[in-house]
C-alpha cells in the first residue's frame, strides 16, 4: 500500500479525534432537558403567576385530593367510624400515636406549599411587572399561606412559623410558636390579602381568590379565635366581615339545597371560594365522589343504583349516629347520603348507607369527576354570621333565627321558634346540629366541635357504645401529636401534651 496514503489517513483520524475532544470539553454543563429548575424561576411575571397557580394546587391537595384532609377531620368526628385497615381507623378510635403516617404526610405537605408561597413572596418585589398584578399575586400567596397555617394550627396547635425561604441548616433551628402567634400571622396575611386582592376576575381568571374570599376566611378565623382555645371574643370583628359579604350582593342563598351540589350550578353565586376541578384533564379531576362511596358499589350509573366507576376502599364509613340524627323529611339526608345502593353482587343494599355528596356531573374515570369542591359556601358565611349574632346577644326570633330557619326551610323542615330555642345555649346546640347536617362530609364538623369545646362530650357519647370511650382522655386530643418523624429530625420541637 501507498505509505503516504496511510499516513494521510492517520492524520485524518487523529484530527478527527482531536475535534471530538475539543467538542467534548464544553459539554459537562448539562441543564435539565425536561424539567424546570428552581434556579432561573420566579423571575418573570408569568413565572410568578405559575407559582401562584402552584399554590392553588396546594390548597386542592391538602383539602381534597390528598387523603389527609378527610382522614384528619371527618374521620375524627362523630359523622364516621372508620375501619381498622387504614390510618383513619386509628383517628376514628382516638388511638392516634405520633408515628401515624398521615400525620407526617400532612405536616410535610403543608410546609411544602408554604415554602412555595414564601419563595414567591420573597422574589415578587424584584420582578418587573405591573404593581396591580404584583399586589394580586402577593395577595393570593398570602391568602394561600394563611389557609395552610389555619389548618396547621387547628390540627397541631402552635406550629413553627416560617415566612421566608430557609436553608436546611436554618430549618434545624426553628422552634414552635404559640397558637396565638400562628393566629396572628394568619390574621395578618388575610388582612393584607384583603387589601391586595381584587373584588372579582375576568372570565379567564375566575376561581382565584377574591377580596370576598379573604374576608370570609378572615371572619372564620376570628370566629375560631373566639372559640376554644383562645376564647378571644372577636365575634364583632367576625360578624362585621360576614355582614360585608352578605351586604355585597355578590352571593346568593340557593332556594334548593341539592342545587348547591349540582354540577350545573357550581360556578354560581353560592360559593364564596371553591376548589376547581376538571374531569379528563390529567389529574385535575375531583376524586371525592369515587373515594367516599362504598367499595362494594357496582360501577354502573347512579340511575341504576350504582356509581360510575365504583367506589373505593378508602371511603367514609358513615356512623349510625349521623344517619339517624336527621329529622324526618330533612332533604339534606338524601342529598348527602345514599341509603339504598346496588352491590357488585347485584344485591340492593339498604343497611349500609354511604356518602352521596358531589356525585353529580361529568365523570370520565374513577377519581376523575368534574365537580368543584366548596371550600367556603355562602350558607356557611350566613350561619357563621348567625352564630356571631347569637354569641353577641341572644335575640329571640331575631336575625339569627331567620337565617337558621331559612336553612331549615330549604331543607324542607319546619322553622323553630323562640319557644323551642329559649336561650343562647340552646341556640348554640341548634346551630351545631344544623351545621352537622348542612355540611356533612365537608370536613367542618370536627373543627366545629373543637372550637365550641363540645368535642369531649359529643365524642365521648359517640365512642362509648363502640367500646372506645376510654380512648378519649381529654382536651389534649383536640389536636394531634406532632409527627414522630418531625420530632426525630428536630428534637427541639416539643411534643404536644398527652402524646
Amino acid at each position, binding site marked *: 500500500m501507498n505509505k503516504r496514503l496511510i499516513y494521510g489517513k492517520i492524520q485524518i483520524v487523529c484530527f*478527527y479525534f482531536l475535534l471530538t475532544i475539543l467538542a467534548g470539553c464544553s*459539554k459537562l454543563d448539562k441543564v435539565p432537558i425536561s424539567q424546570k429548575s428552581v434556579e432561573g424561576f420566579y423571575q418573570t411575571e408569568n413565572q410568578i403567576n405559575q407559582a401562584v*397557580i402552584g399554590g392553588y394546587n396546594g390548597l386542592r391537595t391538602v383539602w381534597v385530593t390528598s387523603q389527609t384532609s378527610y382522614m384528619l377531620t371527618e374521620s375524627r368526628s362523630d359523622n364516621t367510624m372508620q375501619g381498622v385497615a387504614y390510618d383513619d381507623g386509628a383517628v376514628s378510635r382516638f388511638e392516634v400515636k405520633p408515628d401515624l403516617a398521615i400525620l407526617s404526610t400532612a405536616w410535610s405537605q403543608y410546609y411544602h406549599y*408554604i415554602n412555595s408561597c414564601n419563595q414567591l413572596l420573597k422574589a415578587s418585589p424584584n420582578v418587573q411587572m405591573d404593581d396591580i398584578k404584583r399586589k394580586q399575586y402577593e395577595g393570593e400567596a398570602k391568602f394561600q399561606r394563611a389557609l395552610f397555617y389555619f389548618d396547621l394550627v387547628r390540627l397541631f396547635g402552635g406550629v413553627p412559623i416560617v415566612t421566608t425561604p430557609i436553608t436546611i441548616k*436554618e430549618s*434545624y433551628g426553628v422552634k414552635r410558636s404559640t397558637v396565638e402567634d400562628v393566629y396572628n400571622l394568619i390574621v395578618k396575611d388575610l388582612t393584607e390579602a384583603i387589601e391586595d386582592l381584587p373584588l372579582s376576575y375576568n372570565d*379567564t381568571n375566575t*376561581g382565584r381568590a377574591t377580596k370576598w374570599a379573604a374576608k370570609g376566611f378572615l371572619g372564620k378565623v376570628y370566629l375560631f379565635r373566639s372559640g376554644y382555645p383562645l376564647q378571644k371574643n372577636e365575634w364583632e370583628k367576625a360578624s362585621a366581615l360576614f355582614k360585608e359579604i352578605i351586604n355585597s350582593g355578590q352571593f346568593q342563598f340557593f332556594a334548593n339545597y341539592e342545587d348547591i351540589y349540582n354540577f350545573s350550578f357550581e360556578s354560581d353565586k353560592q360559593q364564596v371560594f371553591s376548589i376547581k376541578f376538571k374531569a379528563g384533564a390529567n389529574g385535575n379531576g375531583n376524586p371525592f365522589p369515587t373515594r367516599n362511596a362504598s367499595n362494594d358499589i357496582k*360501577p354502573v350509573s347512579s340511575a341504576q343504583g350504582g356509581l360510575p366507576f365504583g367506589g373505593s376502599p378508602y371511603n367514609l364509613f358513615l356512623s349510625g349516629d349521623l344517619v339517624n340524627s336527621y329529622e324526618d323529611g330533612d332533604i339534606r339526608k338524601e342529598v348527602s347520603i345514599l341509603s339504598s345502593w346496588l352491590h357488585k353482587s347485584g344485591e340492593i343494599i339498604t343497611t349500609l348507607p354511604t356518602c352521596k355528596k358531589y356525585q353529580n356531573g361529568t365523570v370520565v374515570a374513577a377519581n376523575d369527576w368534574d365537580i368543584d369542591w366548596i371550600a367556603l359556601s355562602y350558607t356557611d358565611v350566613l350561619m357563621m354570621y348567625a352564630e356571631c349574632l347569637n354569641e353577641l346577644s341572644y335575640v329571640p326570633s331575631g336575625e339569627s333565627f331567620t337565617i337558621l330557619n331559612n336553612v331549615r326551610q330549604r331543607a324542607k323542615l319546619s322553622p323553630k321558634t323562640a319557644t323551642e330555642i329559649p336561650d343562647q345555649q340552646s341556640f348554640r346546640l341548634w346551630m351545631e346540629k344544623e351545621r352537622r347536617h348542612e355540611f356533612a362530609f365537608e370536613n367542618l364538623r370536627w373543627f366545629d366541635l373543637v372550637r365550641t369545646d363540645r368535642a369531649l362530650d359529643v365524642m365521648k357519647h359517640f365512642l362509648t357504645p363502640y367500646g372506645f370511650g376510654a380512648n378519649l382522655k381529654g382536651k389534649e386530643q383536640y389536636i394531634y401529636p406532632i409527627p414522630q418523624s418531625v420530632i426525630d429530625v428536630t428534637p427541639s420541637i416539643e411534643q404536644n401534651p398527652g402524646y
Partner: protein
Amino acid sequence: MKKRQLNVRRLYSPGIGWIFLFFGLFFILFPVYATATIHENTVLNVDLIITGVVTDSKTGEPLTGVSVIPKGTTNGTITDDNGMYKIQTKENSTLIFSAVGYISQEIIVNRRVIINVALQGGISNLNEVVVIGYGKQKASNITGAIAKISAQDLDERPTSRIDHAMAGKLSGVQVQEISGTPGKAFSVKVRGTSSISNSSSPLYVVDGYPISSGLDNINPNDIESIEVLKDAASAAIYGSRGSSGVVLITTKTGKGGKPVLQFDANYGIQERFSKVDVLNRDEYIAFAIEERNNTWKLQGGNPSDPNSARSSSNYWIDPLWLTNPSSFPDNDWQDLISRKAPVQNYQLSASGSNENVKYFISGNYFNQQGIILNSYYKRLSFRANVETKIGKRVNLGLNLFANSLNSNDNGSDGNSGPVSRSTRVAPIVGLTQQTEAGGYYPFHAAFYLNPIALAKEITNETNGKNILANIFTTINLAKNLSLRSSLGANYTDAFVQYYLPNDINRGVGSNGRISSSYVENYLNENILTYNIEKSSWNVNALAGFTYQDSKTVSEFLDKGGFPDDEIRTLNMGTILNSGSSSATAWSLMSFLSRISTSWKNKYLLSASIRRDGSSRFGADNQWGWFPALSVGWRIGQETFMQKVDFINEMKLRASYGTAGNNSIGDYAAIGSLSSANYVIGLNQGVVPGFIPGSFSNRTLGWEKTYTFDVGLDLSVFSNRISMSFDYYRADVKDLLLNVQIPPISGFSSAVSNVGAIRNTGLELELNTANLTGRFKWNTSFNISHNKNKVIALGSNGAPIYGNGGYNFIVTITQIGKPIGSYYMFQQNGVFKDQKDFDLHPHYKTQNIGDIKYEDINGDGVIDADDRTIVGNNSPKYFWGLQNSFSYQNFDLAVSMDGQWGNKLLDIGNSQAGQSRGNVDGYWRERWRSPEDPGNGWVPRAAVTSNLTTPSTFWLRDASYLRVRTIALGFSVPRSFIAKVKGISGLRLFASVDNVFMHDHFNHNPQTGTYSNTNTNPGVDFDSAYPLARTFTFGITVKF
C-alpha cells in the same frame, strides 16, 4: 409448645452444618495422587524425528506455542499455528509438553515417531492473561483482586443473559435471582452493598465500552471471558463509576489459523420448579367461615348473625359453604396458569485469523417460552468482531453487535399479576369467574382477579433493539509506543405495548399504553501505551483521554375508551388519559494513567490515577481524582523458596485505592420544580403551575469507596491445587443520602453527600485437579463472606426506614448495623389461652389466639419501642461449587451454589390471613381454640392487627443449597468424525438446570418483588415468577 416451635425453626436453619458437610465431602473425596514412575530405557538410543499435534483436551482445538522439550535438555521447539511440532530426539527420551495455563505432560517416546498430545487445562489461572481496565496483564503480575470466568466455565445450558450465567461462579460476586421471568435482569453485587440511595450494581464494560443500558447488549454465547474487578485499586481506573466493582466482558475474536465454522443448537423443556402451598377447597371453606365469624365478632357482631345483618360483604358467609361445600370446584390455580415450555438456542459462528485479519462473526437466535402462560423472551443477535492490519504500523478494527428482543411479561412478578393471584384466588372460584365476562364471586374480594384471564389477556410486549458499534485503531507510533483510539456508539431502544382489556379491569374499561425510550451513548477513547520488556524488569505505562456522552428520551401514552378488545393499538382508544415525553442526558470526561512494573519477576507495583469530570455533579464540584496503588511479591520466585518444590506459585498482594459511584441521577444537583396545575376560568382552563420540588446542592458529588485489599495466591503440587484468598475492607464515604430534614424547610428530605458504610469481607477461591489421568476430575469452589456496617447517616444520624406497603415499617438502616436490616416485632408464639394472655403484655386490641410479641425492652408494654432488628437480607456466606469430570470422550459437570445466614420478608402475609381470597398452607396449623392451639406459631383466623403489624411471623429463612446444573457431554471421537467430510468436531450434551434445592421459601429465597432496594432489600409479596427446572439437549458441530 412455644419452645418446641422455636426449636424446630432453628433446626431448619442450615448454619454451620453445611460448612462441615461441604468441606467434609470435599476432603473425603479428595483423591490420592497416583505418581507415575518413569522407567528409563538405556539399552538402545537412536535419534528419531518425532512429529505430532498438540490439542486442548477439552475443546480438541490445536494449541499454538506449546513448548516441547526432551527431558534433561534445553533444545526444544514450539508448536506452530496448527498445533504441529517436529523434534529430533533419542528414541528412549522423555518429551515434556508445557504451555501457559495447561498442566505439563511428560511422555516417553518409546520409539514412536508420531506423538499426539492432548493437554489438560490447568486449574491454576496464574499464567493466564487477564483482562484489566484499558489493557491486559499476565495473571502472575496481577496485584489487585480480580475474579475471572472463561467461556468454558459457563454452564452448558441456554441462558438468556450473562448475569444468569455468572451465578455461583465468582467469589465476592453475589448474583441474586429475583424472579424466574424469562429474560429478566438479576441483581448483581460485588462485595456487598456499596451505596445507600443509589445503584449498587457494577459497571459493565463490553470489549472496553462501558455500557449503561443493561446486559441486553450481550449474547452470552459470544463471550470469551468475564473478569470482575473487585477492589478499588483495580477499579479506580474506571474512576467515578468503579466503586461497585467493574465487570469486564470480552467477546470472542478469531484465533488459531484456519477458519472454523461452528453451529450450536440447544433445545430444552422447562417445567415449574415449585409451587406455593395453599389451602384446597374444603380447607379454604373451613378457614373462611372461621375467619369471617371471628372478624365479625371483633366488629361487635355475633357469629349467628345472618349476612343481612353484617355491615360489610367481608363478613358474609355463602350459605352453600355450610349446606353443600362439594358443589364448588377445587381449582389449583397455580397449575392452571403453568405449562411445560420449550427453550431454544441456535448459534452459527465463523472465526479465523491470519497475519492480516482476525474475525469472529456470529448469529444467534434464542427463544424461551415462559412456564407461565403467555410469557416469552426471544432474541435475535448478530456480532462481527473484525480486526485488520493496514500497513506495518496500523491496525483497524470494528466490534459490531446488533440484536432485536421481543418479550411478553403479563405483570407476572407484580402483586396483582397472575402469579400472585394464582395463590390468592380461592380454589372454589369458577374457571371463568372473577372477570367482567364471567362475573364475580360475591363472597370473595373482587380485586383478586382470575389468574388465567390475567395471564392470557394482558399484553405487555417489549420490543427492543440494541446496537453497539465500536471502531478502533491501533497505531504503533514508535518502538514500544502505541496509540489506540476508538469511537463507539451504543443505541438502545425499547418499545413497550401494554393492553389491559375491560374483562380484567373491573369494568373500568379497557386501557392501552405505549411507553418507549431510546438511549444514545457515544464514547471516544484515546489511549497511549508504552511497553518495555527487559530480562529483569518491565514497565507498562498508559495515559489516555476518554469522553462519553449519553442521552435518554422516553415517551408515554395512555388511552382508554376502546370500543372492544379486538384491535389493541392506541388508534382505537377514544380517550387520551395521559401522554408525555421527557429526556435526560449526562456526559463524562476523563484523563487516566497507569504504570505497572515488575522487577526480577518478583516485585510488582502498579499505580493508577483517573480524573473524572461529570455533568451530574454540582457546579462547584465537577472534577474528582481517583488514585490507586497496589503491590505484589511473588514469594514463590524467591531463591529461598526454590527448595520448596511443591509450591509452584506464591504471591502476596496488597492494594489501596479509591473509586466512585456517579449513579446519582442526571440532575440531582439541580433543584427541580414540580408541576402543580390548577383549573382556572369559566372555561375551565388547566393552567400550568409550579412549586419547588427539591433543594439545589451545588457541591453535590460522587460517592467514594476506599478499599484496602490483601490477598494471597497459591499454587501447589504441579499447579494441581491453586487457591486465592482475599481480605478486604471497603469504606464507602460521602454517600448520597436523601436525608430527612425538617419539613418546615419545605421538604421532608434533601440529597447530600453525608453517609458512610463499611464492607469487610473474606473470599476464598479454590481450584483443584483431583484426578488427572484418563479419568479427570476438577473442582472449583468459591466462598465469600461480607459484613456490612453503616458508619454515618444524615446530620443527626436518624435512621432510614424502609416500607413494606401500607406504611408498615419493615427495615431500618441504622448506624452500627448492616444496611437495610429487618426491623419489627419479634414473635414469641401465640396467646394459647387466657392464662398465657394474662401473663404477657399485649399490643393494641389483641386477644387469645393472636400473635404474642416479645417485650424487647421489658417495660411490660408492647409498643413501637419493642421493635428490634431481626435479621438481614444479605447472606453471611455465599458459595459456589463446580465439579467437572471427564473420561475419554465423556464429560460431566455439576454446579452447586448456596447462601446462608440471611432472611427474607414476605409481606404477602399481611394479606394472607384474610379469607377474601385463598391463604397459605401454614394456616392449617392455626390456633382454633385453647384446646386446639395449632402449632403455637400461626394465630387465629381473623382480620386483626396480627396481619397489619410487621413481625417475625412474616420473616423466612433465606438460606438455600442448590444443585444448579448437571451437564453431561460427549465429544464424538475424531477418528469417527474424520470419516464425515467437512466436519472437524461434534459434541452432544444433555443438562438439567435447577436439579435440586433445599430452601425455606417456595424455591425462591432470593426474591424481593415488592422492594429490593439497598435500604429496603428482600421485601417480597409472595408473587415472584416461579423458577423453572430445565432439561436441555444440545449439539455442537464444527466444520
